């Protein structure tokens, strides 16, 4: 039985690894170097990383408290809140983009309100950030919630009896103990944000994030022009992802 399971499982691994490897190996170092020198490509990769980082930070500030509440408190409508958090995973991302446009678009109430502060969403960095935030916040909130759930509530209780206010008990006990889960949630969210295409392309075709740029090159110039960019994207994402996983892993005692 085990052998057939191994065979079936290997098919799936191969399905993921082969195309990625094929793309990477099909691109020569010279083509890769030329792509790296392309100003537009570099700018779009940096923009992608930066926008996704902003989205992750926003999700961290609001999502960690939410995750803590979900892990610790039973309140009416908790199931509904959990469902809403998971919703972005099941909604088609282009539909998510349309939905965001309905609220943050130029002529909407919110869009105009933010406009007063000079904040524009459509075809601008903030639009990219909210699109990434929308489609990837579930990863952070769920990971953080699991992290807090794994912390014995009695540790907080003991901290209270030792003189800690609820805030201090959170920062000195619950947060450090859940940090590994939160961090891996942040990495996952960040990576998910970088790869987002559907929602971003509807809110902001320009400035171009890397996946949009890739799509545009493919549409205008064909596969051979798109491939080096794809390779570069895959390699940078792989490298950053591995590095962050290593950093997070080293913290484990």
């Amino acid at each position: 039985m085990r052998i057939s399971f191994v065979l079936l499982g290997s098919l799936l691994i191969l399905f993921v690894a082969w195309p990625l490897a094929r793309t990477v190996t099909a691109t020569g170092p010279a083509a890769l170097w030329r792509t790296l020198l392309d100003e537009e490509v570099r700018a779009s990769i940096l923009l992608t990383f930066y926008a996704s980082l902003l989205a992750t930070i926003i999700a961290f500030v609001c999502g960690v408290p939410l995750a803590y509440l979900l892990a610790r408190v039973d309140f009416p409508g908790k199931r509904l809140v959990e469902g809403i958090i998971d919703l972005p995973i099941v909604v088609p991302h282009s539909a998510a983009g349309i939905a965001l446009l309905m609220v943050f678009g130029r002529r909407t109430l919110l869009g105009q309100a933010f406009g007063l502060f000079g904040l524009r969403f459509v075809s601008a960095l903030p639009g990219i950030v909210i699109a990434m935030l929308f489609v990837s916040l579930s990863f952070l909130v769920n990971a953080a919630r699991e992290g807090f759930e794994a912390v014995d509530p009695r540790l907080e209780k003991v901290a209270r009896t030792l003189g800690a206010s609820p805030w201090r008990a959170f920062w000195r006990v619950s947060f450090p103990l859940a940090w590994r889960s939160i961090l891996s949630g942040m990495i996952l969210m960040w990576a998910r944000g970088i790869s987002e295409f559907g929602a971003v392309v509807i809110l902001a075709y320009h400035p171009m994030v890397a996946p949009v740029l890739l799509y545009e090159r493919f549409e205008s110039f064909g596969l051979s022009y798109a491939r080096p960019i794809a390779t570069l994207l895959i390699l940078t994402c792989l490298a950053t992802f591995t590095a962050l996983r290593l950093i997070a892993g080293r913290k484990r005692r």
Partner: protein
Amino acid sequence: MRGGGVEIKGLWVELEEFRLCDINLDIAAGEYFIVLGPTGAGKTVLLETIAGLHRPRRGRILLAGEDITHAPPERRGIGFVYQDYALFPHLSVAGNMAFGLRLRGMGRGEIERRVAAIGRLLGIEHLLHRMPETLSGGEAQRVALARALVVEPRLLLLDEPLSALDPETREALQRELGRVHRELGTTTIHVTHDFEEAVALGDKIAVLKEDRLDGAKREGRIVQVGRPEEIFRRPANEFVARFVGVRNIFRGEAHPAEEGYKLISIEGLEIAAVTGLEGPVHVSVRPEDIVLSRGPLRSSARNAFQGRVVGISDRGTVVYVSVRVPPDFVCMITRRSLEEMGLREGVEVHIAFKASAVHVF
């Protein structure tokens, strides 16, 4: 003496699946107070309410005369030790112990001095740099105790502190709890389901009874408060009698004797026992382990005494016979042997039990 007295007046706690009804306790400063009851959530709820982790529906809690009913836990000055230690896994032993001191903004030197002092008191100086996951159960519980004591609480709450330990460690730590309490004099409330633990440590015992209400809800109330002897000599009701059981429990002094035995003197009587303990001890002998006869017995039992029947309590098929040596021993025999021996009050009898049947704690 740095502990404060505790007064609990008409305390009601209502949780989803459990409630505490009308708890009234009066605990003197420096007292070692035991809350005894069958395993269940009730005793932990009581301790957590005293610590401020549950809000009571009614009633008042006074500590050293001060009403703390509505004070947050961090302002109560109450130490808490859980059954399974609840050490902070991300902090070293020293970090765990320093936790409360750091919150008080104490200087590094002062923290180190206090951690070292309490570490010495509990014999854990050599563990200070270790992480909690590398500790044995006994070590972890000592650290939890040290962490609670280092901030000099006015009251120490112990929630089944010995239940998670193996018997040998439990015995050692039980003695340690007694010693630490004598040295520091911190008022202590210790919750347990173990009667011998209660007798060995408690100045006073409160028995908590849990009842199942309709539905899944349970409720707990205090059914008897008294000194240990009062609880097992004069149980207030059927529940206490049943929970405590019929026992021969004595206080005595253990001395070494020949062949690895110990002699324990109890009210002038010398009992042979097998134990590693010496000095002041408690002794228990189960009523079914004592052999009763009219004439002198010829057996290998090390302990054979003569006495007089002072009481007979009929429980159906078995009968409990009290024999005054003194002290009084309760023996269990069948109704049939009672009739065969023709026992009644005032009759001279012989009792015997093996040294190995004597439990010393």
